[in-house]
């Protein structure tokens, strides 16, 4: 049974007197010890999906429906008080920018210990020593001393390690990581990805990784869900998604990622024409219609997500026809 399963999640945002769907009919599940990557460009709804799962959507947004089942409890039906026990307890969170996510007026040790006191009911002294152990486990050298430091005293990489320590201290069943390495340099990123993989393997944690970086996805994910304009447009095991991408958007996205080349005259980078559509004026059609090189008449209707091979789903008329 999956650790978390999201079904038909919908979030709307109000803007200029109107409301539009920022997340629409999103569904996925993650098993223990597995990683699902939620991929897409800015504004595609991936972060809003995460915030809805945490019940932390901003005031302009509203969860319209769906289910977020974490170990047989629907998070969308819990009271705020119960939800507070879930966040940082069964559900660990890592945000992109550790400098804003960590509280600047508490030491990193206090911020890790706080969760241990609250969720596991440890006494302060015990919580502190467990916090130091946890900081050590995520690779912070001299953890006993560094635990007394404030976030601004740590480097970007060390700060992200401290945030990971706080997120996993209470042994969550699901770790939700929203762009965990985007603010970091590549050499630091590699260490943080290694750390996440190690922690996940040791603790059999489910990991929901939200990112725009397909390199990170290829490195980490068992399964990938690609989002575009509020919908999941393709979902597949990582080898299938990278090897046989079915949706034209996925193919475009994979083609545009610059790969290291030593060729003296590398070919031009392929690009996707146009820009991401404004969600407030999305026609009742495939959301990728305006940018799709393969679009036809059949695309001018709302397209369902269809299974094109076992475990491989795409929201595209052409991909579905090809499979039949």
């Amino acid at each position, binding site marked *: 049974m999956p650790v978390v399963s999201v079904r038909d999640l919908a979030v709307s945002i109000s803007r200029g007197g109107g409301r539009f769907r920022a997340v629409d009919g999103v569904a996925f599940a993650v098993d223990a010890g597995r990683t699902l990557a939620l991929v897409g460009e800015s504004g595609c709804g991936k972060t809003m999906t995460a915030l809805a799962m945490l019940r932390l959507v901003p005031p302009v947004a509203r969860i319209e429906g769906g289910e977020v089942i974490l170990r047989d409890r629907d998070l969308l039906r819990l009271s705020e008080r119960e939800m507070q026990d879930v966040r940082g307890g069964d559900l660990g969170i890592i945000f992109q920018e550790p400098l804003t996510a960590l509280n600047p007026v508490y030491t990193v040790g206090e911020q890790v210990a706080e969760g241990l006191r609250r969720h596991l009911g440890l006494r302060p002294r015990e919580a502190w020593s467990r916090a130091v152990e946890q900081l050590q486990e995520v690779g912070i050298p001299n953890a006993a001393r560094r635990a007394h430091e404030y976030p601004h005293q740590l480097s970007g990489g060390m700060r992200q390690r401290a945030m990971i320590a706080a997120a996993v201290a209470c042994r969550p069943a699901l770790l939700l990581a929203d762009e965990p390495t985007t603010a970091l340099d590549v050499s630091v990123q*590699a260490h943080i990805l290694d750390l996440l993989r190690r922690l996940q393997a040791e603790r059999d944690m489910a990991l929901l990784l939200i990112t725009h970086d397909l390199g990170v996805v*290829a490195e980490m994910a068992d399964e990938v869900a690609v989002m575009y304009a509020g919908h999941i447009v393709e979902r597949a095991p990582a080898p299938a998604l990278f090897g046989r991408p079915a949706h034209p958007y996925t193919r475009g996205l994979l083609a545009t990622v610059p790969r290291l080349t030593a060729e003296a005259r590398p070919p031009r*980078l392929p690009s996707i024409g146009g820009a991401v559509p404004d969600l407030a004026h999305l026609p009742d059609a495939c959301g990728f219609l305006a940018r799709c090189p393969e679009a036809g008449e059949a695309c001018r209707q709302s397209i369902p997500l269809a299974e094109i091979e076992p475990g491989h789903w795409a929201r595209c008329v052409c991909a579905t026809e090809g499979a039949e």
Partner: protein
Amino acid sequence: MSALLEVCNLEKRFGPVRAVDGVSFTVDAGEVLALVGESGCGKSTTGRCLLRLIEPSAGEVRFQGEDVLQLRGRGLREWRRHAQIVFQDPFSSLDPRMTAGQMIGEPLYVHRLCGRQEIDGRVAELLERVGLTAADGRRYPHEFSGGQRQRVAIARALATGPQLVVADEPVAALDVSVQAQIINLMQDLQQHTGVAYLFISHNLALVSHLADRVAVMYLGRIVELAPHEALFRAPRHPYTEALIASIPVPDPTQRAERRLLAGEVPDARHIPAGCRFHPRCPHAFERCRAQEPPLLDCGSGQHAACWLVEADTQAR
């Protein structure tokens, strides 16, 4: 042939921080030189110093033989006509109260490059050249997407017909699908106008698509400078090697055990003695701890600040 731009021992200190610590390179006319490195390595500061957006602490910058650091008043303004900049964030680099047309027209007016009557025509031409329309000139920055804003910033930079454009992470704030559009545009413009780019970036994979030569910076200094092919095929500095190895490859069948770089970039207030990379270097030996290597010639235009280069040359 002499270089378009020569930078010699450029230094910039911010109090105890040696942000740029003796950087030398040249840029030829029509060339793309990429300046790459991780955050805090001094690459952006270098770009800003040579345009004199901030004043360097020491060193020399020559443009077509003229000493840029001695320029004042009219001479400095003239220099800015020849050397322009495109910043990373098109949300903060464009004035929200000006239309695209006003922003692109302003440099033409300031430098008196055309008469008032001709400005609108020139602006329309520039807008079309960067893939926008003349009508877009009446729109304000908030009406554009990120990619379109960066097109406006590029049109503004090209308005004066510069010979050098410093592009400081011009696509880092954009989504990947839009990144490629902007890179292709910059390449087209270069072929069309013959402008040289100093392309500042942290993204080696991206740089490998457009640079003629690459300079890798670490802690305020260039540690390797080489033609594109040599740098990516056979890097000579262990830092370059590590940087290339740490780029995640978008292919799950190629998940490799990567050799990770030990430790972190040290604080620029306490630059290690000897080779500044030695505390993290897997090959460091006695000499690296004592003596800082200069950029050593590895042949065919490749230079690396590493004592191993000398050891290799002697072995041959």
